């Protein structure tokens, strides 16, 4: 029994963790009232997806996808594609976060607060 759970965790555990992380990220974005926290949760969610792709790229006995001296054959290296994709995704999430922070500064200037309650109560609601 424990064996089964162990193999299951070994094989799928990382995916489970990433999805829990993602679920928590979305949950946090929905539930927290502070905009800064929302941004943090957004980052957690994005990171979880990056983890997911990187976990997909893992391979048994694989090493870094850099040819050091001679090419050792396809089994020797982990999958480079998810890494490349995730570099793009990281930069994209960086850009998004940057814009989010700029917006947050602007919101702070206009409303004097970054708490959703203050903003909704004061001026957002028509």
């Amino acid at each position, binding site marked *: 029994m424990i064996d089964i759970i162990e193999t*299951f965790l*070994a*094989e*799928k555990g*990382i*995916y*489970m963790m990433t*999805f*829990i992380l993602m*679920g*928590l990220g979305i*949950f946090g974005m929905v*539930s927290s009232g502070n905009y800064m926290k929302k941004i943090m949760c957004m980052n957690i969610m994005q990171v979880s997806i990056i983890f997911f792709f990187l*976990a*997909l*790229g*893992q*391979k*048994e*006995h*694989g090493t*870094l*996808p*850099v*040819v*050091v001296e001679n*090419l050792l*054959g*396809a*089994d020797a*290296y982990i*999958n*480079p*594609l*998810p*890494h*490349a*994709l995730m*570099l*793009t995704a990281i*930069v*994209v999430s*960086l*850009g*998004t976060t*940057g*814009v989010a*922070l*700029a*917006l947050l*500064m*602007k919101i702070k*200037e206009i409303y004097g607060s970054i708490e959703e309650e203050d903003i909704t109560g004061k001026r957002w609601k028509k």
Partner: protein
Amino acid sequence: MNMDRNKDRKKIVGVFFVIAVVIGVFFLFPDLLPAVDDAKAPVHTYLSDYYIENSLEDTGAHNMVTAVLADYRGFDTLFETCVMFLAGVTALMVLSTTAKVTKPERSRKERLQISFGSTVLDIAFRIIVPVIVIYAFYVLVHGELSLGGGFQAGALLAIAYMIDRIIPSFNSSLGNLKEETAAVIAGVGVFIYILTGLLPMAGSGNFLEYGKLPFGADTAEQIRQLHGTGILLIEIGVVVCVMATIINILEVVLERTEFDD
């Protein structure tokens, strides 16, 4: 007080709900995803093999991630760079409508006084900055051989600038860029990338087809070198863009917010 506790309880319930749903899905469909490390999964047997086996030959890049990023999927990376530029411009536009915070101009003597608190740190940073710059260039040119690349190099250069900018005791050794100028430079960086992509068209190649850069290459080896040139050129564009964008955002934020010194 009571409300807060109620809220907390709701949050805890939510967290456990999320965890339960994920675990439930995984136990319901155990074969949803291939096992981690499973070398026979479709992920590892199709494109992956091609890249691993052919990237050195196709592109001359030892680092397969760089090969994929800058060559096979160079078009993605072009727009990734654009995302950086766009983020910088957007941040600038969003914050440009608010008034700049005017800071009192400090005399050199004052500036020297307000610092990290100790001369040792000041001097240490003074030494570190050139090292960072040199390291950045190393990372840039080494991108195709081992780990590194334009984004990292750009970030490093920006850090060098940042240290120079935020340590008050520094005497602006790298100069003081205006945020608009930074945005212009970032745009030029992307444009270098685009030009690199457009050049092969003169050699009857497709957009970003480095092997057909019009520099005259016949043998396979020369074509491989051309790929290296192409990758280097676009990495330069990326470096310029990333560095300028980070500086841009930094300047925007610095000019419009009152930080406690």
